[in-house]
């Protein structure tokens, strides 16, 4: 249990302590004239008072204490519990051999846990072997007190990572043993239905789309299915992508996009959407925005080379495919030695670890004490005033 101030700048209010001292020193203002007929027998020669006399020193001390407590109240005092030094933790990624892991870590007195959701002890089996390693490590970094030491035993081929390099505030002992995490089941290549709904005036634009789809099917044969219909035709439920070559977006199309479809829409002006394609001079050629659960790629003009110069580029099919597919998922597998977590200094004072220490605020007790002192000060002040008047 240690006393701490959350806002130490509040102690600047201690400057107000000068005020009662001044008031108690300036006695001229407090003196009231008393008639005294025998004044001539009070001698003129009073020894000069060198030392500073303070009126009613106890009252002055009381007022100073009151102001000091107010200043401390402004500074938000809390009683923090000093974190007891915890036992060092040792975490093992599921998939690593237990014996090998325990042989790798030679420090004594460690708590052994699986690096799995819930951090079960080694006696229990982890729930699954496909664990989000990076996410769990970050969670542990936030939960454990700063003094805890961590040792992590990882296989050589590590999965469950995300795109960002791990930066933890704890210094982690990174032990690499042989092994690999099981592969996640590869997603089968499903056929993607690309629906195109066009107005009669946009028939020439179909050629470009047909060419793009043909180029895709060269790489992945038979995967991309083109479905060209007039505007009025309904959009099939299993269509993944849509190209709308008509002036206005129908309500069915809008609902389809909301449900999670990706659509390329011509003659669509959205000035605040994110720019997707730019030409050489920086002019925005297409904008992309998230609509509901889907995405909408808007071209300001029609799908023709005059407004979209990149239409004639050799890599247009790849660009279109990338735009329709969306951002690629980051890789999740790496060699363990390459993704060793970096040590990041605690950047903010109110770090999560610190605020999680139970800090019991003292505001209520302090406020009660201040109220009590105020009552005492008032009673003492009026009592001495009555005595002085009596």
């Amino acid at each position, binding site marked *: 249990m240690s006393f701490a101030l959350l806002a130490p700048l509040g102690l600047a209010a201690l400057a107000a302590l000068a005020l009662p001292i001044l008031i108690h020193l300036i*006695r*001229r203002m*407090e*003196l*009231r*004239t*008393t*008639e*005294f*007929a*025998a*004044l*001539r*027998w*009070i*001698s003129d020669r*009073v*020894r000069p*008072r060198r030392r500073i*006399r303070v*009126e*009613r020193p106890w009252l002055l001390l009381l007022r100073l204490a009151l102001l000091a407590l107010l200043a401390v109240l402004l500074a938000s005092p809390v009683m923090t519990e000093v974190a007891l030094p915890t036992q060092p933790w040792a975490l093992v990624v599921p998939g690593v051999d237990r014996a090998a892991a325990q042989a790798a870590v030679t420090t004594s007195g460690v708590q052994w846990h699986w690096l799995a959701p819930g951090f079960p002890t080694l006696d229990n089996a982890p729930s699954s072997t496909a664990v989000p390693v990076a996410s769990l490590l970050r969670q542990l970094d936030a939960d454990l007190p700063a003094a805890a030491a961590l040792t992590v035993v990882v296989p050589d081929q590590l999965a469950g990572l995300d795109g960002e390099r791990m930066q933890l505030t704890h210094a982690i002992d990174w032990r690499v043993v042989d092994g690999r995490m099981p592969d996640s089941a590869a997603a089968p290549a499903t056929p993607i239905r690309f629906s195109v709904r066009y107005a009669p005036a946009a028939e020439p634009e179909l050629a470009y789309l047909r060419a793009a789809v043909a180029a895709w099917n060269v790489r992945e044969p038979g995967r991309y299915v083109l479905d060209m219909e007039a505007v009025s035709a309904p959009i099939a439920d299993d269509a993944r992508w849509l190209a709308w070559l008509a002036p206005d977006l129908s309500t069915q199309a809008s609902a389809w996009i909301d449900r999670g479809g990706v659509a390329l829409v011509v003659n669509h002006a959205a000035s605040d959407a994110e720019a997707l394609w730019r030409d050489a001079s920086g002019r925005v050629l297409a904008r992309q925005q998230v609509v509901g659960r889907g995405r909408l790629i808007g071209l300001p003009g029609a799908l023709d080379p005059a407004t979209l110069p990149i239409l004639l580029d050799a890599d247009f099919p790849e660009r279109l495919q990338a735009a329709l597919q969306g951002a690629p998922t980051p890789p999740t597998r790496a060699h363990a030695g390459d993704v060793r977590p970096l040590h990041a200094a605690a950047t903010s004072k109110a770090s999560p670890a610190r605020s999680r220490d139970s800090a019991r605020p003292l505001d209520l007790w302090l406020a009660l004490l201040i109220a009590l002192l105020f009552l005492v000060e008032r009673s003492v002040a009026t009592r001495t005033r009555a005595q*002085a008047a*009596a």
Partner: protein
Amino acid sequence: MNPRVGSPDLIPPDVRARLRGLHLFARGNAGGDGLGQHASRSRGAGLEFAQYRAYEPGDEPRRIDWKLYARSDRYFVREAERDSPLTAWLIIDATASMRQADIARPDVSKLDAAKAIAACAIELALRQGDRFGLIALGGSTQLLVPAGAGPRQRDRCLLELARINAAGSWPGIASQRPLRERIARDALVVFLSDFFDDAAVELAELLALARREVLTVQILAGDERDFPFSGGQRFLDPESGIERRVDANAVRQDFLERFGAARANLARDFTARGIRHVEHVLGEPSDAPLQRFFGQRSARA
């Protein structure tokens, strides 16, 4: 029934009860023209028998009625109406210093105490059939009630007493001369003042020198006698208007010494002149000075 002006307030019942045992007298000759140098039985046509009074030590033995003694075996003194034409004058100090009152009881000032003592003396004189007059001096107050006797005189005096307010300082010597001439020889003068002014002291001494019997009562406030103040104080002298800021704790000892010495000097000077002098502090009963002057023990000449 006519309510007496101010008298119920000035003389509380217990004081009135104690006054019954008191008797005004002058230390010297008992009276004025009525008695001559020669003792004779028939005192003259003007003398009227008023009462017999028990003999008190200090009375002249020739005034004892021996016929009554023969009959009762106790000493009695004849008193005639003109036997003791005593004239009692009350001089009251009405200067601003008499406004002083105790902090604990701010409604009773030194002037109020002087008025109460004067009312007691008037009651005594009235009961004895003596003449009495009232003088008040101070600031703009120059009051004179000519000497007379009887209840009407008493009411007149009490009315004027109630009107006196304390202000200003003691008038100069020149304006006091007519007053001194009003007070006849061998009159009894009761001087009620705090004697902070030297001119008041001079007046008392002049009167004593001129063979008036002067009794002085120095009236003080309890705060002046004890100086109970502490801490920083700002004092105002009501007569001179001087204001001084003092540290009460530092000046207390010195003040008590100097003020005590001044009071002792005053008592000594008065006694040297033959003036009977007592001190009266606020809070004491109003008949205390009169008891000390005229009580049984002090009847000795």
